[in-house]
């Protein structure tokens, strides 16, 4: 029996809790889609308030999943975030683990 055909509820424990939050998942999906983005873009694209976004960006940065820099764009200081290779891998692993679980639940 392949992994796709077996549903083991214990696998859910292996889900990355940093990514498992809908807010942080949204942020990572946005950053996975672009090379880098500023605070306003992320707030618009993920439909998050600035406070919520700020708090969750800090958590993602602490986990090493995103990189945050202060850059001057047209002489205006901007908070620019980008996903790190570790963040990309974590998102792919999360997707690989959750996907088969969801597939089994649908059957």
């Amino acid at each position, binding site marked *: 029996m392949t992994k796709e055909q077996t549903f083991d509820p214990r696998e859910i424990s292996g889900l990355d809790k940093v990514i498992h939050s809908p807010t942080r998942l949204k942020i990572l999906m946005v950053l996975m889609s672009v090379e880098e983005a500023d605070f*306003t873009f992320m707030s618009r694209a993920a439909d998050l308030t600035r406070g919520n976004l*700020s708090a969750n960006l800090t958590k993602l940065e602490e986990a090493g999943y995103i990189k945050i820099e202060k850059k001057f764009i047209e002489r205006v200081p901007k908070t*620019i975030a980008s996903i790190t290779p570790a963040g990309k891998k974590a998102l792919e692993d999360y997707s690989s683990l959750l996907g088969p679980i969801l597939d089994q639940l649908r059957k």
Partner: protein
Amino acid sequence: MKDQLSEQTKELRKQYARTFHNDGLLDFFVGWAIVSAGIYILTSLTIFSFAGWMPIFLIAPLKKRFVIPRFGYAKFSKPASIPRPILIGAGAVILVGTLLITFLGNLGSRAPIIVGLLGIALLAVLDKGFNRITVYAIFIPVFFVAGFGLNILTPGLVILTGGVLMALGIYLFVTFMQKYPLEAEKEDELL
């Protein structure tokens, strides 16, 4: 599953890029370029052969002034397109071809403009793929060819088409401004 994720992020990237470019600026300036071409066909005043292209340099500053503060800044990474050396090579061939036609050919003064514009359109398609922007890039030379070379478009029709695009640009710009109002810069950006 990894492929599915990659497909989803590709779709998101396209969606963000579409929204980012849905500010009407390009539509307005393409419209103006076509209007200028129409006036040039009508009057043969050289100034209008340049007037259509000059404001293209305003797009970037206007985008920075109106679009980025409202929608935010993002660098859209893109899937590998045509390698840069091939693109530069194609550009060089078009440039040399245009110069040869200008100095050696006897096709008249309009031929280099048409070849040059078609070349720009080709490069845009190679670099950006086939989308609304490249459709516009093709649209303008087609108008030059149809209006100048083939004389099948009247100046009035060219001007009218450009005017419609300018109006569309203004409508999109106003809609964009309303949809994405300016947000005050707040301290919570500073983490």
